[in-house]
């Protein structure tokens, strides 16, 4: 199946697995699909699943005291998805996780995932590397949020992921950058990339 090929192609450059390890790793994933605007994890819930996205766009967001939604992360093919910190620590999530468009995934549960991790050092190594890259991404974004102006954040996003302009509604992109939607459209009109 195509989705499983994509998963293998995604994993292989990060951590090559032996044939038997790959087969076991492969066996814990089930296809799963849902409509747009489906909330897959609510704040307060502990993330049960790890997702591998093969179609659609999703986001994790936090509802602040001023009732503003802060978009924390977007995911789209091909990448892992879900509320990563809640999944890995098995503690309640601070965020909601929802699909923005109709989505298709491969999905596994914490229990199945943990069993393989405990048994196979190569799979543990894979998880460590994926987590390390995710952490690098989070800290890079942390710097941007704290130190960059609205225009710098806008430029950094479009340099890193120019295609998001086409696939994600601009109001969510503005919420991701922590800037006003009107500021976002002004930047879109004025900034030469």
């Amino acid at each position: 199946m195509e989705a499983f090929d994509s998963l293998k192609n995604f994993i292989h450059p990060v951590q090559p697995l032996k044939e038997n390890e790959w087969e076991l790793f492969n066996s814990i994933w089930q296809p799963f699909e849902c409509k747009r605007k489906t909330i897959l994890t609510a704040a307060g819930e502990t993330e049960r699943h790890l997702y591998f996205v093969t179609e659609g766009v999703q986001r994790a967001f936090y509802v602040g005291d001023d009732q503003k939604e802060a978009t924390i992360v977007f995911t789209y093919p091909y990448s892992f998805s879900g509320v990563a910190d809640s999944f890995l620590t098995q503690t309640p999530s601070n965020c909601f996780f929802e699909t923005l468009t109709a989505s298709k995934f491969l999905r596994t549960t914490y229990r199945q995932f943990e069993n393989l991790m405990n048994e196979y050092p190569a799979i543990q190594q894979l998880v460590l590397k994926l987590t390390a890259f995710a952490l690098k991404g989070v800290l890079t974004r942390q710097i941007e949020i704290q130190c960059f102006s609205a225009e710098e954040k806008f430029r950094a996003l479009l340099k890193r992921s120019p295609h998001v302009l086409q696939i994600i509604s601009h109001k969510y992109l503005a919420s991701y950058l922590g800037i006003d939607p009107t500021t976002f459209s002004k930047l879109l009109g004025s900034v030469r990339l």
Partner: protein
Amino acid sequence: MKSFKSIDLIEQLQADIRQLILAATYLEKEDPELLLSAPAPGKWSVAQVLEHLNSYGRYYLLAIEKSLEADKPQKQLFTPGWIGNYFTKIMKPGIDGKIGNKMNAPKNHRPAADLDIKPVIDNFLEQQQRLLELLEKAKQKDIGAIRTPISISRFIKLKVGDTFRFFVAHEQRHFFQIANTLPDTQKSTGKFQSIPPAIQRSPVF
């Protein structure tokens, strides 16, 4: 009667409950005075609506939990019973958010007017988390064979799959009421200027 794939029905109900959790999370951050004021004399405040839901939750969550202890393993398909289906249908609001037939709550589910908002919302959110867990547990069970007594008579039992559907439809119905209550309260009290985002993102299912 149309059958559902059990797992699809359960996951749809879980997604519906998560929408309610999101809506309640907005309410949690709303001005307490807005939530405690009646939209019109004799009408329920938002706090009263939530406490009305909590009072049903106190019965049904326990009843469902108890019935799920039965040793009846999962079946792929779930066919609603006719009573359960009827209850769910009359409860469920239309897609446009219109609540068709009005009902009167039984005496023991009419909440007091002098409520403390924080414990009411906390309790509501706790109940929804428990409901999500019960649905997770129900994935392993035959939700067509296990039955749960309804709150007004222990002699009438619904398939637990229907109890879940009916219970969630009841909550959705009242969240549409809440979405209507907030702007009415703003108008009648004249105190609140802006439309709270809780309404802008109303619980549309």
